[in-house]
């Protein structure tokens, strides 16, 4: 059987000094840029539309369509428009963009240049979270090399300038309008939409914001063709993506494959759940996507099928937890994260995440009562759909889905008078479980 692994974005990660211009160019780097420059900007936009590429940052919105929302470009009276790359990778479980920028920053830089050319932006930004020092070094070095090689700069063929901008620690800045406020030197709080960034984004100018993996996919689409890209994946979820396996897996890591692979297939590649243990629950795309269980091993991991299973594909951040893990503890910790990262702008999220933590703490310590579960669901109803941005919605996902799948485990905490699990058993260094045949 042929392997489902299709290395495109990850293909050069293992090569010597893969982050340098020299290594990238030797592997065919910047040929897609040369090809793009032979086309008109509109033809490049059309190719991205035809490829079916959907945003890889979680929402899955068609990238070409997003570009198409920009107002028509006025040749006679050009006004600034911007490309901003969202490299604020912070969704718990998500760990694909950071290794991509560490190993092959030029893939992203080439994508930025082609995409800027397509949307006629002369200034682009990569907004990268501040907590990844070496990734920022690699990105800056790559940008400097691209300037020196004549790929970037006002006199380069595409005429694009690119600034690598380091954030300062705020999960909310992954939300695209909060990112724009942050990039303008403000508190990173989301903006009311409309107007959408395509109309009034950075400095109130037309702006496209895309995830790292989305923009990094553009050179391959241009280089190998939209048809090739669209031939991979499923009918409505086209192309390849990076799946990130973490947690109680024998070989956690990055697995690049066409959309639609299942967790069962991915676990086969990764050596399965760690020896002697069984899958208990998992997130398909980060902590903001409702958890799934061993009943969902054969759900194709594309936008449609995961949605039909009651969750979201999100960032394909597959956090795998085995039977040693207390689901209440896991959900409490995620809730503490959302409470900490709520930007405070809107009341349902700011106050609601605070209350979720109060109730979940009580339950985890065995001090609550059965009515607390209804209380939690009621609180979630008052957060989801009533918050200013998706952070509030995301905060309710683990709570609601865990009660749906593991209500008995919550109740067991009450009967036991505390958490019935041994936290030591779930650690990476827990004694190896003996399996008896």
């Amino acid at each position, binding site marked *: 059987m042929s*392997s489902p*692994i299709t*290395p495109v974005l*990850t*293909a050069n*990660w*293992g*090569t*010597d*000094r*893969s*982050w340098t211009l020299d290594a990238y160019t030797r592997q065919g780097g910047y040929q897609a840029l040369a090809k793009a420059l032979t086309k008109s900007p509109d033809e490049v936009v059309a190719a991205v539309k035809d490829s079916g590429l959907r945003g890889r940052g979680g929402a899955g919105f068609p990238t070409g369509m997003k570009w198409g929302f920009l107002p028509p470009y006025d040749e006679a009276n050009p006004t600034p428009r911007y490309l901003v790359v969202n490299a604020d990778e*912070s969704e*718990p*479980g*998500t*760990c694909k963009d950071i*290794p991509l920028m*560490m190993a092959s920053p030029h893939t992203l830089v080439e994508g930025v240049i082609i995409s800027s050319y397509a949307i006629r932006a002369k200034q682009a930004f990569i907004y990268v979270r501040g*907590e*990844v*020092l*070496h990734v*920022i*070094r690699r990105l*800056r*070095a790559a940008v400097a090399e691209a300037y020196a090689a004549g790929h970037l700069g006002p006199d380069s063929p595409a005429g694009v300038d690119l600034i690598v*901008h*380091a*954030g*300062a*620690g*705020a*999960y909310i800045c992954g939300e695209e309008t909060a990112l724009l406020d942050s990039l303008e*030197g*403000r*508190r*990173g709080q989301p903006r009311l939409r409309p107007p959408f960034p395509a109309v009034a984004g950075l400095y109130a100018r037309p702006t496209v914001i895309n995830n790292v993996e989305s923009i990094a996919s553009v050179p391959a689409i241009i280089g190998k063709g939209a048809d090739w890209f669209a031939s991979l994946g499923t009918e409505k979820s086209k192309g390849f993506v990076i*799946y990130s396996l*973490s*947690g109680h897996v024998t070989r*956690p*890591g*990055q*697995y*690049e*494959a066409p959309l639609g692979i299942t967790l069962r297939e991915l676990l086969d*590649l990764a050596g399965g759940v760690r020896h002697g243990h069984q899958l208990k629950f998992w997130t398909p795309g980060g*902590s903001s996507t409702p958890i799934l269980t061993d009943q969902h091993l054969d759900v194709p991991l594309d936008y449609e099928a995961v949605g039909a299973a009651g969750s979201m594909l999100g960032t394909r*951040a597959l956090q795998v*937890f085995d039977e040693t893990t207390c689901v209440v503890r*896991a959900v409490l*910790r*995620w809730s503490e*994260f959302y409470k900490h990262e709520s*930007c405070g702008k809107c009341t349902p999220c700011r106050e609601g995440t605070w209350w979720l933590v109060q109730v979940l703490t009580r339950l985890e310590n065995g001090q609550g009562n059965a009515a607390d579960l209804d209380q939690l669901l009621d609180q979630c109803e008052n957060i989801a759909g009533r918050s200013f941005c998706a952070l509030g919605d995301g905060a309710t996902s683990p709570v609601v889905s865990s009660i749906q799948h593991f209500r008995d485990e919550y109740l067991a905490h009450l009967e036991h008078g505390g958490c019935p699990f041994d936290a030591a058993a*779930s*650690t*990476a*260094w827990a004694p190896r479980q003996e399996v008896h045949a």
Partner: protein
Amino acid sequence: MSINATTYAELQEIAGRYPQARSGLLPMLHLVQSVEGRVTPEGINACAEILGLTAAEVSGVATFYTMYKRKPVGEHHVGVCTNTLCAVMGGDQIFAELKEHLQVGNDETTADGKVTLEHVECNAACDYAPVVMVNWEFFDNQTPASAKQLVDDLRAGREVTASRGAKICSWREAERVLAGYDDGRADEGPSAGDASLAGLKTLEGK
């Protein structure tokens, strides 16, 4: 301590990199930390003056982001991920043992001023859990023992190299890089760690 002429000029230079000067505020605050060891009132005033903002406006930004510190940070900042996945994989135990080992609480600095310990949120390295960050460099697949050895080495001034990154500099030097002043060390370290290559490795020999 006040902001000297060199730093003031660099702050102006950062503001000048952007189409609109205020966009430089986040990197400017990183530079303030690299010089002052925290965000000081003097640093806030300098940023405000350069950008034509009030000190309150700059403070409002500085207090929003967790990487900006109002208390002095030690020579090294050690961040232990205690978000769910790392916590479950052992991050909670690592953090507890480090607190005891260093005799500090969360967001506190050792008496010798060498190490500030903090629990941090998900740092996008879940396939290397449990993860510890030193001055925002990755230390992958940690254990309580390896983490204690790590902080002992930092306190003793021994050379320490990140799992996927460079030889460890000081927290202040790291903040200077975040402000946009390169230290020329991008070529240190590997392309990727083992987990990043896990998918590729399944193809080996095929």
